[in-house]
């Protein structure tokens, strides 16, 4: 573009500071909201009212806020599950399957200790809740390890493997909780049995204790990549497998390790939703809705650029908007999925704005060219 003697030019950025990256993300959010307000206008709704409803329900309302927080913890854990393999240059698309596997392991532990009989008084939460957490991580880790092993040993594409394991885990859950399954609720109904009262996760002001795990993990993951030898090796492998191999690192083990860690955290997300969020305490009939939500972990991880601290506000935003969007749809009687539309536009906008992480516009002063001969193509 040219105005007078100035030309608008696209330039490559040499560096990008943290706050500039944050600013670009905020601009992307504003842009997405502006774009979607056109959709609200077309639907005959005042966008200002719609956004007021969405944000006040998601982040202020006494009923909406806990829902937002519960969702955000879930999304945050899934984001971590994506980030760790991502640092090794690998894509974990299998958080859904891993969280299902983790949830099944949790129920398995409960069954093993005889907790399927309702309100068994002998079960000690002090002992069993840690067991359940470990089981959740183990389940997710095992499923993740399959993809990591195939990648490290045979260089099988991890995206395809994790994606397909999602389907296997999905139907495995169905097999286990529906008619005739080991985890079936007595009387069927396509749900799992409910956790005994004694095994209900402790709450902190109405929020499950898993919030502390989720926030604490940000510090641990940060430390893993900033300080430890294994984190260093993961980063090296992620940036250049050839260089990592040259430096004597095991290029077969690193994929296994990151998928074990990622899968374990996705397993925790399964524990969080199906065993710690108040009012659920089971794998419900519509469990795939929760499983699909795990995919937000991918986009949150990409937006956060693999930074676990940046993942916290991003996950909160996604948890809040999916919650508020669903609410406003009913409130204002709109006939389309506002939550999906909102998050879809937001994702595209955030990803598109990442262009500005690498480029920027600048005005360049140019002298007028005196004459020009452009060669015609022969």
């Amino acid at each position, binding site marked *: 573009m040219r105005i007078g003697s100035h030309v608008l030019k696209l330039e490559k950025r040499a560096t990008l500071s943290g706050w500039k990256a944050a600013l670009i993300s905020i601009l992307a959010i504003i842009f997405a909201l502006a774009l979607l307000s056109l959709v609200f206008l077309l639907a005959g709704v005042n966008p200002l009212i719609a956004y007021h409803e969405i944000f006040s329900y998601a982040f202020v309302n006494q009923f909406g806020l806990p829902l937002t927080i519960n969702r955000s913890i879930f999304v945050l854990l899934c984001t971590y599950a994506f980030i760790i393999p991502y640092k090794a240059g690998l894509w974990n698309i299998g958080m859904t399957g891993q969280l299902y596997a983790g949830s099944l392991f949790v129920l398995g532990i409960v069954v093993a200790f005889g907790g399927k009989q309702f309100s068994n008084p002998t079960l000690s939460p002090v002992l069993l809740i840690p067991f359940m957490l470990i089981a959740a991580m183990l389940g997710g880790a095992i499923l993740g390890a399959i993809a990591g092993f195939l990648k490290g040993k045979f260089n099988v594409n991890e995206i395809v493997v994790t994606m397909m394991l999602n389907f296997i885990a999905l139907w495995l859950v169905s097999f286990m909780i529906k008619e005739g399954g080991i985890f079936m609720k007595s009387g069927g109904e396509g749900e799992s049995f409910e956790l005994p009262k004694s095994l209900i996760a402790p709450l902190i002001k109405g929020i499950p204790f898993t919030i502390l795990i989720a926030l604490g993990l940000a510090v641990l993951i940060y430390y893993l990549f900033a300080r430890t030898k294994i984190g260093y090796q993961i980063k090296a492998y992620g940036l250049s497998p050839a260089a990592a191999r*040259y430096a004597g690192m095991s290029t077969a083990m690193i994929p296994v390790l990151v998928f074990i860690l990622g899968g374990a955290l996705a397993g925790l997300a399964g524990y969080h939703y199906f065993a710690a969020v108040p009012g659920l305490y089971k794998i419900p009939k519509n469990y795939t809705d929760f499983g699909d939500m795990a995919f937000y972990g991918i986009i949150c991880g990409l937006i956060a650029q693999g930074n676990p601290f940046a993942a916290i506000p991003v996950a909160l935003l996604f948890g809040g908007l999916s919650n508020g969007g669903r609410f406003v749809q009913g409130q204002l009687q709109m006939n389309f999925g506002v939550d999906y539309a909102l998050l879809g536009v937001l994702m595209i906008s955030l990803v598109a704005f990442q262009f500005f992480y690498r480029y920027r516009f600048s005005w360049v002063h140019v002298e007028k060219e005196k004459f*020009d001969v*452009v*060669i015609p*193509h022969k």
Partner: protein
Amino acid sequence: MVLKGIKRGEMVLEARGITKRFPGVVANDQINFEIKAGEIHAILGENGAGKTTLMNILFGLLQPDEGEIYIRGERVRFRSPLDAINMGIGMVHQHRKLVAAHSAIENIILGHPRAGNILNLKSAEQEVLALAERYGFKVDLKAKVWQLSEGEKQAVEILKALYRGAEVLILDEPTSALTPQETEKLLESIETMARDELAVVPFITHKLPIVLAISHRVTVLRRGKVVACMETAQTTEKDLAMQMVGREVIFRIERADVEKGKPVLQVENLSALNDKDFQALNGVSFSICEGEIFGIAGISGNGQQELVEVLAGLRNAQGGKVILDGKDITHASTLERWQRQIGYIPSDRIHVGSIGDFSLVENTALSHYYDDQFSRRGILNYDALRKLTEEVISEYGVAAPGPETKAKNLSGGNLQKLILARVLSRNPRLVIANLPCQGLDIGATEFVQNKLIEAKKEKAGVLLISEDLDEILSLSDWVAAIYEGKFMGILPAGEAQKENVGAMMAGLQLKGYEL
């Protein structure tokens, strides 16, 4: 026969005041350049002097921010290489841009406007053959490109440019991958072209004798500026080097006489496959003692890469033995070899030897992260690593703003210094240096070579692999020539000459040196 009525001495290409800026650097700063028909005008400069940028501008790959280009007095603007080709500019890239699965003639007519949709290979072949004969290129036009040697591929590229009617031929590092014999032939061809009123512009980094041998004029670039433009007849190698580097350069490397010690590395009958499962290394045996530099001369692709990868534990040996300090390490892991004090300087310093997005500290750690000194209970001691990196930067004169700079911001020479420093700071018993000076400028080359000699003085055994015969001959105590995965001979330094080693590199078995 090629040109359309051009007279000798007529100005064909002129560039005035070319300026190109990239973020943080002025790659070309007010560059003036001209070439007449029948002239060979070399452009000389170290890496980072702005040669590539200028070349890309002349070929239409980049647009200059300022400045004008004239072809036969007419102002032109290239929007793409197609414009440049149509205006009679031909380019032969250093890294060949040919379709490997196609035959030579198919590559030559690829994209030619006269080729049309139905290929008439016969008539094209006759025209190309006539060109090849005139300029002394011997290429089987029906052979597939992947079967051709580097020299033949280059000939195909030149023929391609000529067949498209190039009047100005830009050659990027024309002799970098050629044997001495091939180089000689190419220079003859270039001279014939100049006699036919073609304008030839070779871009050269450090092979000053080539510049002196063929060019009529030479333009020297330094830090994006033209520092000299002179008649070649009125200059000397020393003078050119000084203009290029900006300071006096000593050419002779002091070969150090070191008393040789016990054997460090013994390789017995080693063989290996390449990535395509073809036999790449075919029964190689040699040994290196403390205080010796063992040089392997050969054109790339004759098994050198496979040899060093087997020695580094990055590729499985198909047969044979590798013995380090008396211990069989044929099946040891890479990490184990590093811990047994093997140091390896890979040829691909950008993708293998370093990680561009890592800081210099993290890059230094690539050779140290496993040392107890730098990691305890799984936690890396970044403070110690930073201190080491700072020492390395100052001791080796790595030009970098600081230890937290990303490696991708370093020039090739500085990156190589960092890799070298990182490897040598472990006091290795054996140093494997694969093409350590490839693509480096004179100053950095001198530095790297002296460091290898220092390692030799410290009683390390050094395995040096290079395509540059001069480098091998001036540094090595033993010279082996490798051809198709086999040594054609192993010569002590006193007997190794350019002629006999060069012949062995080309696959000749010389009497008296049979293995």
